[in-house]
């Protein structure tokens, strides 16, 4: 296992000298690379190294750095290895290369990212509305989207929720038990 | 004049009898099904409550003329076939016997075979116009399945026709009265084939893919609510009474009074019902394959038995 993993990392680093490897235990390989090389690396991993399956595409909003991070998670059925390929793109101008011709199922993730973070994928199949119909605000998974403010503006709250009491003290008083220390920090 | 009046009143009485008996049977079946499932189940008159509720619902659907005519076709077919089936043995000794002899000397089995299919075809046209895809799929499945069970059914009847050289149901009853044996013993192969066909006609499991609620959203009736559904429900009840009575007349010696009729039809009805409760659901092609295997074999055997 260890040897195969090291071999894989070496092969990637040899083909893509600008890639940065982070070591993890188990069957996980983690490669950070710049945005332009991602399609080439995905293609390389799929065709040459046996990572035939795209498990997931995760996305993270790093609002402090002004970047979005996209993580492509690949799986190699023959070597039983996971490959994480991370890349960061600019938050102000979020454009990423379209990869739905490499894996068709990437299209679904890309449509979700387009809707939830506002990342554009030029050349993507069916670039229209996916889950959020009639959405006219900033994309909701961005960290600067204030959910509660949006809810207060769009929906209604039923009165009564705000005076919800912490009932646990009443319960403990009645039953004669004590709130354990580790639970006290959750008390309101 | 008096004769015609009795005919009309008798027709109405026959219809009311068929309606009440069919609806009660439906309710009893729901109760029995519930008891088999280890439930309490609805009361046996639940179907009447349902019918009343459906009748008192407002209807604001309009899909075109054929959509209105579909349930009407179903009702017409049920009532017409009811009129041609001898509910009781003609010329029996009960005082109400003449009330239920509607037009039984005018029709014969071949006419009945035709008119019993007519309702399904009308229903197919009506459901086709609703434009609901579930309806169309249900119709396709229903008609394919009908092709399956019609063949053993017709073969069973043809074998009896060949055996006794008649197509009149009254003659069949008379034969059984004279010889003293029911035709289910005189030609057992025909009875078996007919029984399989009867199971297909009742659309209980395993042949209930036509109106499976979870798969097809109840199939052909999916676009019909309220009074449409009331019409279909009542005509279905009448039609099940017709099928049972016809089967009892042909194979089980008819019935001389209403008590015997109820006992015989209920016993017969329990066969598809009880088998249906415990069985799974066939797909259409499985159902058709089923009907074209053993029931068809028994049907052919019945014809051979009748000829030889």
């Amino acid at each position, binding site marked *: 296992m260890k040897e195969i993993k090291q071999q894989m990392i070496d092969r990637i680093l040899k083909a893509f000298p600008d890639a940065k490897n982070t070591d993890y235990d188990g069957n996980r390989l983690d490669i950070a690379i710049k945005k332009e090389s991602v399609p080439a690396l995905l293609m390389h991993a799929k065709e040459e190294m046996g990572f035939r399956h795209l498990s997931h595409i995760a996305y993270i909003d790093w609002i402090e750095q002004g970047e979005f991070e996209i993580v492509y998670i690949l799986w190699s059925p023959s070597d039983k290895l996971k490959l994480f390929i991370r890349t960061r793109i600019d938050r102000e101008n979020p454009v990423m290369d379209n990869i739905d011709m490499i894996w068709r199922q990437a299209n679904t993730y890309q449509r979700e990212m387009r809707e939830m973070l506002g990342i554009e994928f030029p050349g993507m199949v069916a670039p229209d509305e996916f889950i959020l119909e009639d959405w006219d605000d900033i994309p909701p998974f961005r960290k600067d989207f204030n959910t509660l403010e949006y809810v207060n503006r769009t929906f209604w709250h039923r009165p009564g929720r705000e005076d919800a009491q912490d009932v646990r003290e009443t319960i403990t008083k009645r039953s004669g038990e004590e709130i354990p220390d580790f639970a006290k920090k959750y008390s309101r | 004049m008096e004769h015609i009046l009795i005919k009309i009143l008798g027709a109405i009485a026959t219809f009311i009898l068929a309606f009440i008996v069919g609806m009660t049977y439906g309710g009893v079946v729901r109760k029995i099904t519930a008891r088999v499932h280890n439930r309490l189940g609805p009361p046996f008159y639940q179907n009447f409550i349902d019918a*009343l509720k459906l009748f008192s*619902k407002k209807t604001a659907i309009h899909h075109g003329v054929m959509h209105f005519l579909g349930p009407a076709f179903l009702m017409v077919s049920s009532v017409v076939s009811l009129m041609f089936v001898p509910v009781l043995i003609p010329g029996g000794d009960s005082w109400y016997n003449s009330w239920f002899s509607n037009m039984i000397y005018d029709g014969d089995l071949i006419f009945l075979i035709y008119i019993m299919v007519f309702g399904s075809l009308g229903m197919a046209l009506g459901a086709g116009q609703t434009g609901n895809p579930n309806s169309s799929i249900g119709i396709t499945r229903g008609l394919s399945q009908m092709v399956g069970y019609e063949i053993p059914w017709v073969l069973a009847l043809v074998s009896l026709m060949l055996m006794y050289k008649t197509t009149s149901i009254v003659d069949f009853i008379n034969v059984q009265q004279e010889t003293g044996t029911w035709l289910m013993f005189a030609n057992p192969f025909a009875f078996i084939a007919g029984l399989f066909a009867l199971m297909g006609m009742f659309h209980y499991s395993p042949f209930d893919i036509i109106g499976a609620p979870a798969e097809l959203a109840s199939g052909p009736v999916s676009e019909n*609510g309220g009074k449409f559904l009331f019409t279909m429900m009542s005509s279905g009840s009448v039609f099940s009474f017709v099928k049972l009575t016809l089967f009892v007349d042909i194979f089980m010696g008819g019935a001389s009074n209403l008590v015997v009729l109820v006992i015989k039809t209920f016993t017969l009805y329990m066969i598809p019902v009880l088998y249906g409760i415990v069985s799974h659901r066939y797909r259409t092609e499985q159902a058709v394959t089923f009907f074209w295997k053993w029931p068809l074999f028994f049907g052919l055997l019945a014809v051979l038995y009748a000829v030889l």
Partner: protein
Amino acid sequence: MYNDKNSQKIVDIIQNYARKHSLWVLAYGTGCGAIEIAPTMTSRYDAERLGIRGAATPRQADVLLITGYLTVKTVKRVVRVYEQMQDPKYVIGFGSCTINGGMYYDSYNTINLLDRYLPVDVYINGCMPRPEAVIQGFVKLQELISQGKANGAAKYKENLEWYKANQKKIAPKWFERAPEYNW
């Protein structure tokens, strides 16, 4: 259109008796609540003994049972389903999500108050309400029907503009395109 016990005619009383004892339920299984419907209907709790049974399509149904949270996307479909049902029709809101949003009260895409969009006759609270509570809710609905107080559909007709405005507020384009309510 409103009628109460004192102004009911004999016809109404008979019809309400039938309606009360024959509730065909269209269970709109959004959220997690649909899992409670199966034990309610099957042999453990057996709702059929009260005349409650499932209906396959909105055309045949009397009761629209909304089991759980409604997202903006599903509320459009629920409104369509409700408008396809035939009078008299009732709505049961099931679980705290339909009452005040429940645990999704600050979610960007689930509605909080169901009764702003559809006229709800009975709410069943709980997260999740157990089958006993569901049956209790149905019995309450039966009481309302026999007293002639389950007038949600009439309320919807009278306050149609208010309901439509609320619906259009969350999904303007969809409800502009949708066909108008017709009876």
